[in-house]
């Protein structure tokens, strides 16, 4: 039996994530928590998030969870979701520019503003909301049993540019290609919401609950 900590820092719909994890692994103990000790004790950590990056970072710091998140991201299977992925980057252009957790180098840009500044026509409506195709650019245990080019559910206005060195394991396209999933070592993170992506999303979460934390490892 494994324990999964879903980090609660007041940003977003944690109940759905927790319910989905319980749904795919009925033996897992899932804790929605902001207690650093409970996060440290957990076998796996899920770092969700919605809303504005500035508020996310401020809440993480206020609850003294930023160091806890970074620690978890060093040593156990770790899943960031949506804002929980963007917050892993160094910096986001949201809210006039916010420094984030800095685990990955790369830019977080707004779909509309970023393109307007570059003189490119907006690629579509913002937020990017709905089901879009995810291409599995790099094999990873998290994709087990999920067909390439499956549809996942997205809701976001900012996006992570494609990352070098095969860090982008899942790619999506919304006028411009962007990072739908990141992985490195024991960390995996998705821009889409697996907990809202029906069967394929539940499959991905099930893979996570079984994953040993090795990029080429087993689920």
């Amino acid at each position, binding site marked *: 039996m494994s324990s999964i900590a879903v980090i609660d820092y007041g940003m977003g719909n944690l109940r759905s994530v927790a319910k989905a994890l319980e749904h795919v692994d009925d033996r897992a103990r899932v804790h929605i928590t902001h207690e650093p000790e409970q996060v440290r004790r957990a076998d796996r950590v899920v770092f969700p998030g919605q809303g504005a990056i500035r508020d996310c970072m401020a809440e993480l710091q206020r609850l003294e969870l930023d160091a806890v998140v970074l620690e978890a991201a060093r040593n156990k299977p770790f899943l960031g979701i949506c804002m929980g992925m963007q917050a892993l980057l160094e910096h986001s252009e949201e809210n006039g520019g916010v420094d984030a957790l800095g685990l990955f180098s790369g830019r977080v840009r707004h779909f509309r503003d970023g393109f307007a500044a570059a003189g490119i026509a*907006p690629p579509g409506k913002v937020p990017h*909301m709905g089901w879009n195709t995810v291409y599995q650019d790099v094999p990873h245990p998290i994709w087990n049993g999920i067909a390439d080019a499956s*549809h996942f559910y997205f809701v976001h206005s900012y996006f992570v540019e494609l990352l070098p060195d095969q860090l982008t394991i899942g790619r999506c396209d919304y006028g411009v290609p962007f990072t739908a999933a990141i992985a490195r070592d024991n960390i995996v993170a998705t821009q889409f919401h697996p907990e*809202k992506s*029906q069967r394929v999303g539940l499959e991905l979460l099930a893979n996570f609950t079984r994953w040993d934390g090795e990029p080429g490892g087993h689920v």
Partner: protein
Amino acid sequence: MPAAASGLCRRIIPCLDVDRGRVVKGVRFVDIRDAGDPVEIARRYDAAGADEITFLDITASSDERDTMVHVVEAVAGEVFIPLTVGGGIRKPADVRRMLNAGADKVGINTAAIHDPDFVRESAERFGSQCLVVAIDAKRVSAADEPARWEVFTHGGRRGTGLDAVEWAARMADYGAGEILLTSMDRDGTREGFDLALTRAVVDAVPIPVIASGGVGTLDHLVDGVLEGGADAVLAASIFHFGTYSVAEAKAHMAARGVPVRRMLPEVET
């Protein structure tokens, strides 16, 4: 606005009216045990390929509004697609309660008209992505005039004096993440969406628009997307009464060139 960018699917959204915790207007599925149970109906729609589900709480008594929170909790525990809840959302605390219960979005209708800043404040607090502003519009121009639609409340009985297209643009400006646009002229008629209204609003706002009101055939769904320009189509009775399944609707839309989410992707071996 540009056409939807490549890859993004147009969504099919069944809508369920809920009164005191029970689905009303009768949902007819073969073999359904309890046609009023929101959880079971939501599961059926989920399995059939619905891309989202919208619940409209039509409970008249505010004393019984808590019931809807329990409905959302129960559904969110079993159905893992986006859920929207509208009806009776009047203050930020209502938004928070529904989001905490497991809703992904809330629909705001009358409260936005009474207090537009409610939308702005909620967008700042909870994010635009979870705010759907619902607009009930009725054509008020004469046949020989340029088309004009007014926002109505109370099921289309009470006019507000607001121009529906301008109102949609204003709500987008205030931070709405999506517009749920219902034609009160077409609602319940099965004559198809008001495509001119849909197109006018789609062209006026930079956010997704859900077309609603009047669906009677699968071609109506296609028309809402291809002619109206809607990002999503919402329907109630054609699905509830079993006239068509969501899966049939998707197959029809796909055949006519509308990108829709595939239900059962083949698993790589």
